[in-house]
């Protein structure tokens, strides 16, 4: 126990001595979280709209007002001929165009059904898809304001996030991503730095067992990760106003196995790499980017081809993102999230064992 404490103190002292590492560790996460929390939004608002009104009547202006009056659209131009739309869509200055045909007011006055044209820019498929669906919704509202009702009305009821604010889901996931990057990077340097500097031999001639060295390396980084979460959590809750419907205790109980995974992955990399540079490359490209993309954080897992869906089962971030979604938005506890916790615990244990075996065979 005494020797363990000694190595812990040594590691923490070493961390403090690198003057550039502390700002990276503590200020960077908060700054990143603030910026990324704002940037990572899939809410589509203020879609650039071009209007081509060939009717020029009071009725067509009312229709145009229904579009420009909503926060979903922002009118960028009114053109007189549908040929002029080419330029606006080609240059991406407009993402969606509304063409009101001549005779629109006459049709409306006579009570005849009429059709307007909507043109979407498919090169940005996300904005295009949602822009079209908002436009159709707007048309329906205009029709309903005139007393029309579809015989079957679909009444949506959205749970957990009624206004569909993407920030509520994205910000906790960004937090998870930052914690993962920091802890994985730190621990991937842990052993390889000692070997590169030639101090590994010195460590090995001390009476410390390989297990104690590994524990001594991991615990300080786990502490750093915990402090990072504690600095970043207020930003999530109070700055971004993400509701925490579950308990902090559940959050802690699920964060611990996640950190076990990220730290063990880093450690495993540290035993695989011969130089710090290799360690960083392996961490980034083999462990970090796949986790970000295959976790369901930005791209839903259910949209992936079957084989990629299988791979996501060994991605710890996948479980943690699900856990965060559950704790923050759904307010559920371990009674629902135990499979996620168990999966992370299992993955963490397997990876840590692999890292210890590698380390032992290296020093032996």
């Amino acid at each position, binding site marked *: 126990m005494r020797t363990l404490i000694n190595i812990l103190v040594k590691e923490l002292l070493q961390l403090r001595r690198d003057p550039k590492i502390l700002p990276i560790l503590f200020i960077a996460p908060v700054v990143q979280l603030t910026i990324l929390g704002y940037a990572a939004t899939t809410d589509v608002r203020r879609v650039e709209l071009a209007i081509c009104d060939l009717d020029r009547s009071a009725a067509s202006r009312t229709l145009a007002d229904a579009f420009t009056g909503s926060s979903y659209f*922002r009118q960028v131009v009114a053109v007189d001929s549908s040929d002029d739309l080419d330029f606006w*869509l080609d240059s991406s200055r407009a993402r969606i165009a509304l063409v009101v045909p001549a005779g629109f007011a006459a049709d409306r006055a006579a009570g005849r059904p009429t059709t307007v044209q909507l043109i*979407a*820019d*498919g090169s940005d498929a996300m904005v295009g898809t949602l822009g079209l669906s908002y436009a159709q919704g707007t048309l329906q509202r205009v029709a309903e304001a005139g007393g029309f009702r579809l015989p079957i009305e679909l009444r949506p009821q959205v749970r957990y996030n009624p206004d569909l604010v*993407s920030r509520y889901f994205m910000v906790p996931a960004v937090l998870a991503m930052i914690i993962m990057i920091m802890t994985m990077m730190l621990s991937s340097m842990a052993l390889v730095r000692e070997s590169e500097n030639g101090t590994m031999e010195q460590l090995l001639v001390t009476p410390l067992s390989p297990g104690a060295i590994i524990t001594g390396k991991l615990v300080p980084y786990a502490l750093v990760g915990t402090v990072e979460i504690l600095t970043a959590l207020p930003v999530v809750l109070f700055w971004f106003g993400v509701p925490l419907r579950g308990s902090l205790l559940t959050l802690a109980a699920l964060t611990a196995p996640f950190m076990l995974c990220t730290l063990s992955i880093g450690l495993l990399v540290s035993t695989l790499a011969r130089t710090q540079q290799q360690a960083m490359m392996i961490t980034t490209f083999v462990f970090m980017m796949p986790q970000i993309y295959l976790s369901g954080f930005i791209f*839903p897992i259910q949209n992936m081809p079957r084989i990629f869906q299988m791979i996501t089962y060994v991605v710890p971030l996948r479980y943690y993102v699900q856990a965060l979604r559950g704790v923050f938005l759904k307010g559920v506890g371990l009674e629902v999230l135990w499979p996620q916790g168990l999966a992370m615990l299992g993955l963490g244990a397997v990876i840590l064992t692999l890292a210890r075996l590698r380390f032992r065979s290296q020093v032996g």
Partner: protein
Amino acid sequence: MIRRILAMTVKELLQLRRDWRTAGTLLGMPIVLLLIYGYALSFDVRDIRLAVVDLSHSRASRDTVQSFLSSGYFRHVATIDDTEALDPLFDSGAAQAALVIPAAFADDIAGGRTTELKFVLDGSDSQTASTILGYARQIVASLTPGLYKVEVEPPIGAAPLVWYNPDLKSSIFLVPGLVAFILMVTTVIATTLAVVREKERGTMESLRATPLAAIELLIGKTLPYLLVASLSATGSLTLAWLLFDVPVRGSIGWLAVLTVIYLAGGLGWGVFLSTLAESQQVAFQIALLSSMLPTLLLSGFVFPISSMVQPLQVISHIVPARYFIAALREVVLKGVGPEVWWNDALALVAYGAVVLLLATIRTVRSL
């Protein structure tokens, strides 16, 4: 001067050939990453887990459920008799959407009265939820004529038309952005590390002792990387066209020009960062943070810039990938020429110039 630069370039190329890791990162990594992520990433929502609460137990309600399932978007996970039982299904994520058919549904239809369907959604993934709601609306609208045996035409119909990507396939929109993302990350990281490594090993000193001027040193050092990165860009773009059906509607010449300017900016940034960092560890951290996150989040690759808060829209102007992705989509998907994207190209040139200038000043000062 040209001879000295050339000599330096040849030396770097030789070194690069021996240093298979850096060369491999630059050449192979983009292609591997594109292969993996090009297939994996998509916003086209399928296999939506649908729970059904049928309180009507009628032929009309069964037809309604059937048309949801045969649309190809939904997968049936449970049929329950009680809306209370939906809670655990949604809490655990077993269901993403639920269709609740009221008891009076069939009677309303038989009597020619209007009726309603309740559609419950898991909003915790807001993007997916919006998409699902769009699908459900379409299906319900298409149901009406069959159930009511009348043609109902809305007073204002919409004739939607999608240009450039008629099926709204998300891969066509994501893959060009992915290429830009991968190229930026690999070039910045590889150059930063290559230069810092030289510093760490002390070989920078011996280069200083040669009659090379700082600017010659800089050009000689980045030129080989530009060459390798251009090769890998060609590979990635070819792959995008071959495997992911990304059409190349515009001019390949302009595409090459834009790509080289973009890569030069990325390399310049890498060299600039290398003058700030003393160790490979710090170099890697700042290279990663300054290339990967902005390019992922502030470039319009995934998240639409026009929907962001104002300060971020302003910040996004210094992210080169923003201009490259915009221009790339315009050249590749829209097939338009410089008269449309000249401002993006100009911004890329300006970025490259500023970054290379900064890199030169810093290098001169450190030598």
